[in-house]
């Protein structure tokens, strides 16, 4: 069906889908000729068009180069809504509310870690609960649970999982205002209760990486990154808690749309006006899930630090183990952006997209204000991940956003077929990567070939001028669910 969608080339890295039919704005796709061929294989461009139908959408329905077919919104989609007349769409955030990535940098080098790498990965695998159906080690009282969803990462730090300085290096200081237990169903509370401090499965991971290339030394230095340094990347979200909140509110919004007579091309885009009661309630429940995810990544990082202490018999000072930053890539944020020369407050939906603010932006931590916001683009487990930094152009072009990952090219079914008869663990080990996974199928489903080459994705955003490469991370240890 994508063959029918007309695209007009703006430049080598940007195409426009002209506004037509019920579209309120045009679509814009950041990509290159080669990736565009892959994008046309599925229904993701149709989804860019569908998002352009949402009430209150501003400027463009935007897609990043890692765009792929999702449900409702494409994965890699960005849409900013006018706060007055616009809508909030739970599907535009995703089921895994505040899924994101954090990067922790250590003082250790590859040379120091390599001799004990297997011990380290084994220890990480045993101390970070992961996999389908695996419960966490933390038992929450009702009082704890309420505080967790009100305070986010701050709650985790008050309980001893991390340091105060970590909060400076998380979007919004790791705590979203307005998380309200009264807007959350019993089902959601139940699904989240024993999942705090767990990684999950699917594409979520904990990875030990080495900084193997530095592209912008000054910025890398400001982020505390140096060549051959060992880092840890953590990718996970709000677990069953967020999944159930999204499920619950899509139904509430379908009723709202019937009541208000809003018609959209796909039910999965279900939405409510930001200022409606339904919209406000979703935003309170959403804030709770955002906080849950921040606390979750904070706790997992604390577990990872403990694994390093025990394997290398060192303390916090020797390890370093400082949080570089924590980025969200399934989120909606109220931000001010310039639209037709005027500064307006908008609600930016980033579904599989990362905020990428440039230097001097007031919403980035003071320590990074002179260089810009760190952005993490995880690749597949066999190749590389990238650290980028936001540029001025992001504000003009993409509501301060850029890509979030490599993006799948193979379905899980095709990946499983291609993995048949192969020992993927041995293949990874041949590349110097020790991988451990709870589920037998996970590594096959997540094999490197299942993803686009992340470097191509990062090159598009760099060439389009919306972010710049700072460093490359090469995996040496991987934990999957």
């Amino acid at each position, binding site marked *: 069906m994508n063959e029918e969608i007309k695209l007009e080339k703006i430049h080598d890295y940007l195409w426009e889908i002209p506004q037509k039919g019920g579209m309120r704005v045009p679509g814009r796709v950041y990509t290159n000729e080669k990736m565009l061929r892959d994008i046309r294989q*599925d229904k993701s461009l149709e989804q860019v068009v569908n998002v352009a139908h949402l009430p209150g959408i501003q400027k463009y329905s935007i897609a990043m180069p890692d765009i*792929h*077919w*999702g*449900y*409702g919104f494409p*994965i890699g989609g960005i849409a900013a809504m006018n706060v007055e007349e616009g809508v909030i769409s739970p*599907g535009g955030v*995703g*089921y*895994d509310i505040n899924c994101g990535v954090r990067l922790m940098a250590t003082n250790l080098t590859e040379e120091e870690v390599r001799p004990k790498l297997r011990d380290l990965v084994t220890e990480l695998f045993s101390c970070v609960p992961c*996999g*389908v*159906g*695996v419960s966490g080690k933390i038992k929450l009282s009702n009082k704890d649970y309420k505080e967790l969803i009100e305070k986010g990462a701050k709650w985790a730090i008050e309980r001893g999982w991390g340091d105060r300085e970590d909060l400076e290096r998380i979007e919004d200081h790791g705590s979203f205002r307005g998380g309200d237990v009264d807007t959350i169903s019993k*089902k959601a509370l*139940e*699904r989240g209760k024993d999942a705090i401090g767990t990684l*999950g*499965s*699917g594409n979520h991971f904990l990875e030990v990486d080495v900084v193997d290339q530095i592209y912008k030394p000054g910025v890398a230095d400001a982020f505390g990154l140096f060549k051959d340094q060992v880092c840890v990347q953590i990718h996970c979200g709000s677990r*069953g808690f967020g*999944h*159930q909140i*999204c*499920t619950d509110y*899509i*139904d509430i919004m*379908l*009723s709202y749309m*019937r009541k208000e007579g809003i018609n959209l091309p*796909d*039910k*999965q885009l*279900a939405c409510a006006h930001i200022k409606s009661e339904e919209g406000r309630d979703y935003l309170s429940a959403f804030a709770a899930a955002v906080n849950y995810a921040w606390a979750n990544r904070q706790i997992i990082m604390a577990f990872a630090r403990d694994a390093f202490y025990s394997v290398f018999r060192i303390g916090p000072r020797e390890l370093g183990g400082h949080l570089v930053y924590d980025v969200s890539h399934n989120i909606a944020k109220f931000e001010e952006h310039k639209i037709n020369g005027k500064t307006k407050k908008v609600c930016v939906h980033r579904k599989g997209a990362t905020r990428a603010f440039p230097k001097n932006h007031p919403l980035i931590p003071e320590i990074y204000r002179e260089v810009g916001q760190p952005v993490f683009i995880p690749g597949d487990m066999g190749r590389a991940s990238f650290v980028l930094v936001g540029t001025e152009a992001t504000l003009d072009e993409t509501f301060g956003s850029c890509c979030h990952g490599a993006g*799948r*090219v*193979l*379905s*899980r*079914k*095709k990946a499983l077929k291609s993995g048949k008869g192969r020992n993927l663990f041995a293949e990874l080990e041949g590349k110097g990567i020790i991988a451990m996974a709870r*589920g*037998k*199928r996970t590594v096959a489903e997540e094999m490197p070939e299942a993803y686009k080459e992340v470097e191509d994705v990062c090159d598009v955003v760099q060439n389009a001028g919306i972010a710049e490469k700072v460093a490359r991370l090469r995996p040496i240890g991987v934990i999957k*669910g």
Partner: protein
Amino acid sequence: MNYEILDHTADVCVRVYGKSFDELLRNAAYAMMELITDREKIIPSQKIEIKTKGETKEELLVHWLGDILYLHQAKKMVFRDFEVHIISETQVKGKAFGEKIDLEKHELSSDIKAVTYHNLKIETLDNGLKVDIVFDI
């Protein structure tokens, strides 16, 4: 075969058939449970009653599967079999037969986050009904 797994880049899509709406709901539940684990290894020692409502048939289908998914995720259950009774256009009563998850015995292969409404449309065929369901995993 009353269901098949289709290709979908990021998520999982299943095509489910049923001679009637209640059979479609039952087969959809089987399909979802097969995505989660090997149904053959589940002993149906416990029975759980499920009451589901929905404004449309599509909503009813999503809610029915959502209720089973909740029992799996929150109550840590896996199910071998299902019974479905249509009460009205907007209501079904069902039973799920299964047991508590035992990770030693039940290998769980997919963590289904949710049942989506994406392009969800129950189609009428000559000999019954057909629907494509996208699960977020």
